[in-house]
């Protein structure tokens, strides 16, 4: 790929992505009075965002939907959820348990 085209592409992607992040700058510096009903909506954003990433990551590994028993991420996710519930979401042990399970399953049963 030509360097010129790549640089234009990267500049364009960077510019539009920065636009999507601009509300942080605007909202922090303007400090608008929060609307109470909107606050209820904003409170739900973390769980909605995390669920979106988890469901797509587990059910669509590599980008295509896989609900079959051969999708090893399903079993790794089960183990990870159990560890996360027991340890109340502690990051490092949950990350380690999930990733090690996925690697081991892949080595044992992967294609």
């Amino acid at each position, binding site marked *: 790929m030509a360097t010129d085209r790549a640089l234009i592409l990267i500049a364009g992607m960077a510019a539009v992505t920065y636009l999507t992040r601009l509300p942080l700058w605007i909202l922090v510096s303007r400090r608008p009075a929060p609307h109470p009903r909107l606050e209820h909506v904003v409170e739900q954003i973390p769980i909605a965002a995390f669920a979106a990433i988890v469901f797509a990551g587990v059910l669509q590994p590599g980008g295509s939907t896989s609900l079959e028993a051969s999708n090893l991420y399903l079993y790794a996710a089960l183990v990870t959820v159990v560890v996360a519930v027991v340890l109340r979401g502690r990051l490092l042990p949950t990350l380690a348990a999930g990733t090690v399970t*996925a690697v081991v399953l892949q080595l044992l049963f992967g294609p």
Partner: protein
Amino acid sequence: MSARPGGAARSELSAGIVESLPLGLALIPIGLAFGYLAHAVGLSWWLAGLMSAVVYAGPSQFIAAGLLSTGAATPAIVATTFVANLRYSLFAASLAPHMRDAPRRWLPLLSHSVADGSYAVTIDHALARPERPRKDQYLLGSFVVSFVTWVGGTILGALAGGVVPATIAFGLAFATPAIFIAFLVPYVRDRIAIVVMLTAGIGTVAGNEYLPAGVGPLLAIVGASVLGGALSWRRTGR
């Protein structure tokens, strides 16, 4: 807490760094995978690293690399990137109320630091420790760790691409869902949370299946948040 000026800011900065180390660990295999993919679609190591540094938005970069391999035109890739990353506006709206004491000179850089992982770590911290000042420095600390591991992983992946065997790489890629399961689980405390989780999760999977790249997660997150917000508003009656 130190009495000297800047003590609160400094302790938030170091907390942000330390508490983001697991996130950094999760970002390395994803960075390696992106670097390898970017190299495969014709980006040299420094262009791949530059993209990770200035775009700094993993999922949209994977989409862009995928589109490049299909021969998509530059404007189409840029437009897709915009839509795929619009969820950062939601994250920004969710973080902003916790950053009211941020000095204005940090805001341009803080805006660039809004990404999935740092958002998750920082909103967790902000909700758990509302009394602490200078959450902007916590976000900045998280950004430093994420930026170094994401950009470093990308460059390594582009240079050393096939070093990690594909089977192990596929297992390591589970790091993303694994760490976001750790973020998600503590939030699932009541029925409204379960409704929001299922709506966002199933909506994203269905959207990815049937809608243009990047649109599904955005619609699902907005829809689930509005639904959850309406339910919670009805419950509290305020």
